[in-house]
């Protein structure tokens, strides 16, 4: 191979080629030693072990959830659990209809997206298409700072600022614990997630597409909304679905701000209890290990896991459908 290269290129630097050849021989010799082979194999095994740890942990969690949930469904029927409209698990003779928890969870996730998607997308478009490199270098870390605020702080923010200073003056019937304040706080919490991931997707759109649109006389807004956003749609949708999953699984904000009254959520100004909110309430109390209430925690956890799994699968399908490949 190298011989034919040399014969085809008479001007090639022969001393340099000879040196490269000798370097290659030395490298081969080093790789063929016993210790080198052993360390290579060791690194390979270590990497496989690292991969297995995360996979096995996930499998273990799912197995525990399924095992305990199956025991729960020995006490309460699956139909009563999925379609019952009363959740009084912590009462003496409790009911285990999960619909109140599911409706509150879905309502909080949906309302939080009303805040997070428009604001997050607009921030992403600003960072990607409008901001100068200097402004972006300041704004991006500030956004990441917001993502680093502990969720319990957002919970108190909802309880002590959003409800009394924002919602009460507008809706006088707002209760102290309410779904809307929790939703707004969750929405604000996931803004950096939507903005950061969407900005990455927008920045990955090839420059030639923008230049083509500018060449046709499009304004910056037209380029952003009609060229760049459609081209980055798969990444944007993925960020949104990820944010929805995050909102579904959010715990501390809803536990603090939404209250602990499990009822079918039909009014966002009233309290409601989400699936994670119930788990916090039950675990922070004195639930007896092995009791039906204890097992119900795993059933609720399994349902939450399945909802998140379905959302992730939908996200993968959407990403595959809208994916645009550019050279």
């Amino acid at each position, binding site marked *: 191979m190298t011989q034919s290269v040399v014969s085809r290129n008479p001007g090639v630097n022969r001393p340099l080629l000879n040196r490269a050849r000798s370097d290659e021989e030395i490298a081969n010799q080093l790789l063929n030693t016993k210790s080198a082979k052993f360390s290579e194999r060791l690194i390979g095994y270590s990497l496989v072990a690292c991969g297995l740890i995360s996979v096995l942990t996930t499998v273990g969690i799912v197995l525990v959830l399924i095992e305990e949930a199956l025991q729960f469904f020995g006490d309460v029927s699956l139909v009563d659990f999925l379609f019952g409209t009363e959740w009084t698990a912590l009462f003496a003779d409790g009911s285990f209809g999960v619909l109140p928890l599911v409706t509150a969870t879905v309502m909080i996730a949906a309302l939080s997206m009303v805040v997070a998607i*428009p*604001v997050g997308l*607009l*921030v992403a*478009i*600003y960072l990607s298409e*409008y901001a100068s490199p200097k402004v972006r270098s300041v*704004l991006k870390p*500030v*956004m990441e*700072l*917001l993502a680093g*605020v502990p969720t319990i*702080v*957002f919970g108190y*923010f909802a309880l002590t*600022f959003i409800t009394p200073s924002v919602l009460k003056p507008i809706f006088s019937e707002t209760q102290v614990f309410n779904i809307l304040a929790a939703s707004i706080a969750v929405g*604000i919490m996931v*803004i*950096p997630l939507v*903005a950061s991931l969407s900005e990455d997707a927008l920045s990955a759109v090839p420059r030639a597409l923008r230049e083509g649109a500018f060449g046709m006389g499009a*304004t*910056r*807004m*037209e380029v*952003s*909304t009609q060229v760049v956003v459609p081209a980055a749609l798969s990444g944007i949708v993925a960020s949104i679905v990820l944010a929805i999953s995050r909102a579904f699984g959010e715990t501390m904000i809803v536990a603090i701000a939404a209250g602990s009254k499990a009822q079918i959520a039909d009014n966002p100004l009233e309290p409601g209890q989400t699936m994670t909110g119930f788990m916090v309430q039950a675990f922070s109390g004195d639930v007896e290990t092995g009791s039906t209430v204890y097992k119900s925690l795993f059933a609720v956890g399994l349902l939450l896991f399945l909802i998140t799994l379905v959302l992730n699968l939908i996200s993968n399908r959407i990403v595959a459908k809208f994916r645009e490949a550019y050279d």
Partner: protein
Amino acid sequence: MSALASGPDVAATDLLDSTQLKGRARKATIFRTLLFAAVGFTIAMLGVLIGPR
């Protein structure tokens, strides 16, 4: 070139219709204002969250 020459009979003044241009410029301004508002909202929320109460 020939395609341009035999294209629809549109006057340059129609192509550069000032009302249409003004409309596009207005939309662009509104959009830019929205972008600034979104960024301002996010920064303000951060300020309220971590700032002194």
